[in-house]
């Protein structure tokens, strides 16, 4: 390397070094002329006079990590030498950008934060070349990006300036849910599960009828009231579902979304009809098992509504677990009183367009 050669030949010539500190705390030193090639570092030195020693290292923006920093310095070291021809520079550049996608993105980001325009242009062009000619799915694969746009947004790219991260995360979950439902449809697990549930509750009903007739009367009045309220809720939901799902169907006309919304509808209708079935078959006076089912359903629904209104950090935790496990932990049983607050319109158990949900919850406030 030329620097070590110079050091041997002229040991008395001291190269001045600039000290730089990355966001993670690690400190590097680099030759002055190399560092000065970066406008941001150059300005920092002129402005604050820092960087001359280890203790007064210049802190770099957080987008720059040590590995990328050394790459950047390789680039600067080559280009700051005035005597190179254009051909040399060009061939260096072409070899330089041969790295994996992730690294290239990090490099672009870091160069941008250091305001190193020629490197930003070089890497941006390289990334643009990687993007051109690919379908969105291929782009997602190449850059490992999430698929978090709703089907409607894909067809009519929306100018939605209100970037609500909750909506983004929920969209991602919906996309994942849709996939899960498709898989489940294939395996036909849900039908089996729900049938099982039905059988159990019927048996319990029968055994309860046959067993204890007295306790029925005591709880009769209370149960009647509770069940009626709960019946209203699921029924309203199931009524809303087809309406909303149909709306969604009209809005989307490409094959895959309608398929998934059909799958959704089947699942939701099956789920809702499960509730209906139970409601229809039992008397009001009956039975804690069925009541439990309804409680669970109501809790899910309430929880969902609560989520839409609650704070972002705690929602994030809930949402992340929501996507994986539909069974909820019934934490508070005294939720019956709060039922009155929620109208059927607030909460829709299904997959309406995100815009509709957002409008509704905003309208509430």
């Amino acid at each position, binding site marked *: 390397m030329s620097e070590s050669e110079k050091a041997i030949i002229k040991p008395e010539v001291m190269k001045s070094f600039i000290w730089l500190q990355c966001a993670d705390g690690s400190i590097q030193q680099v030759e002055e002329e190399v560092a000065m090639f970066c406008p941001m570092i150059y300005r920092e030195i002129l402005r604050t006079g820092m960087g001359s020693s280890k203790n007064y290292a210049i802190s770099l923006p957080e*987008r720059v990590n040590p590995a990328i920093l050394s790459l950047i310095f390789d680039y600067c070291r080559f280009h700051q030498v005035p005597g190179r021809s254009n051909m040399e520079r060009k061939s260096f550049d072409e070899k330089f950008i041969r790295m*994996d*996608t*992730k690294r290239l*993105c*990090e490099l*672009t*980001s870091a160069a*941008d934060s250091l305001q190193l325009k020629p490197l*930003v242009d070089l890497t*941006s*062009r390289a*990334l*643009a*070349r990687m*993007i*051109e*000619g*690919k*379908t*969105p799915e*291929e*782009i*997602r694969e190449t*850059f*490992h*990006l*999430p*698929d*978090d*746009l709703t089907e409607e*947004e*894909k*067809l009519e*790219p929306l*100018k939605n300036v209100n*970037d609500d991260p909750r909506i*983004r995360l929920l*969209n991602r979950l919906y996309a994942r849910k849709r996939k899960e439902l498709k898989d489940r449809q294939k395996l036909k697990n849900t039908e089996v599960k729900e049938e099982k549930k039905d059988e159990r509750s019927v048996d319990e009903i029968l055994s309860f009828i046959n067993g204890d007739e007295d306790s029925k009367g005591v709880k009769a009045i209370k149960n009647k009231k509770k069940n009626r309220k709960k019946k209203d809720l699921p029924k309203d939901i199931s009524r809303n579902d087809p309406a909303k799902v149909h709306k969604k169907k009209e809005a989307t006309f*490409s094959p895959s979304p309608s398929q998934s919304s059909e799958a959704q509808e089947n699942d939701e209708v099956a789920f809702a009809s499960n509730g209906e079935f139970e409601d229809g078959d039992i008397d009001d006076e009956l039975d804690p098992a069925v009541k439990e089912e309804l409680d669970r359903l109501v809790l899910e629904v309430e929880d969902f509504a609560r989520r839409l209104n609650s704070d972002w950090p705690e929602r994030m935790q809930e949402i992340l677990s929501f996507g994986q496990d539909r069974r909820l932990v019934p934490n508070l049983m005294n939720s019956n009183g709060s039922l009155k607050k929620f109208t059927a319109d607030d909460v829709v158990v299904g997959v309406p367009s995100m815009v509709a949900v957002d409008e509704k919850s905003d309208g509430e406030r």
Partner: protein
Amino acid sequence: MGRATVRERYEKLGLAEALSRAHDYPSACQELGLILRLAYADLPKNLQSVVFQDTLSAFRFLPEVQTGHGLSSANVLLQAAEVALPKQKKALAVSEFKHAAVAHKRRSRAHHDGGSVVLPYDVLVHIFSFLDLRSLASVGLVCWAWNSAAIDNGLWQMLYSNLFDNDSTCTSKEQDHKLVPDGKDVVFHGGMGVDPTINVDWKEAVRRKCEGVSSWKFLPNRVVCGHCQSIIWSSGITCRTSHECSKIGNQKLNIRPISPYKVVEYLLGEIELAVMSSDTDDSDSDGPSPSTQHLPRLWAYPKLSSNS
């Protein structure tokens, strides 16, 4: 129509270079396939061998093009070659393709790096400024972050001025309305439209222009400049790079789409570009439209096209 001119026109099409560019590869294969099917028999012998060599090099470039669209267009080219080429050349082409397909598969399996990087908005907009119309539309469908960068108004303004109307860059008589496109294209977004130069929704303007003229809707691979009569790849016109026309002077931009069939007709000398450029709108919608049916629409998710 002498031999020299057919050769010249073929060279102007620049297929050999286009095949080496991954994003132009599918369009170039499509064009080459059409040339094989429709024009090969009528070409002079030496041009036939050039076309054959280009076909072989197309297959040699295949492993580098790791997109589904690339692979399917190479298949289309193979089918065209099987139909059009004489026995010996056909055998060579087929074997070349088989080697390429194997190498393609091998390379696609080797691709494995994990992890995603979040690119900030400004950086994304900067990257997208190097993209052409088709890429910019599809990049907005990738994910939310990229969508918000892809609908940046500035990008679409640059694209509009490079494709349809360069008045925004030239000085014009009505200074206040410099940036306003043709009346029917203007869509105002956001609050008050007191100053028309501020509130133009350029993405909408581009979309309306595309929907108005039917031939733009179907993802033209090639466009023609009405002034200098040259056929250019539509991917060559990006937000940043416009068509540098030697003959435009102070005139308005005149870039029109041209279908692959018309390109073949041009090659065979059957049409004149100057005449054609004004008729494109009508003829593409009435005339032979097997091409337009197969080519995907611009604003929906692009399906893989195959011409049979």
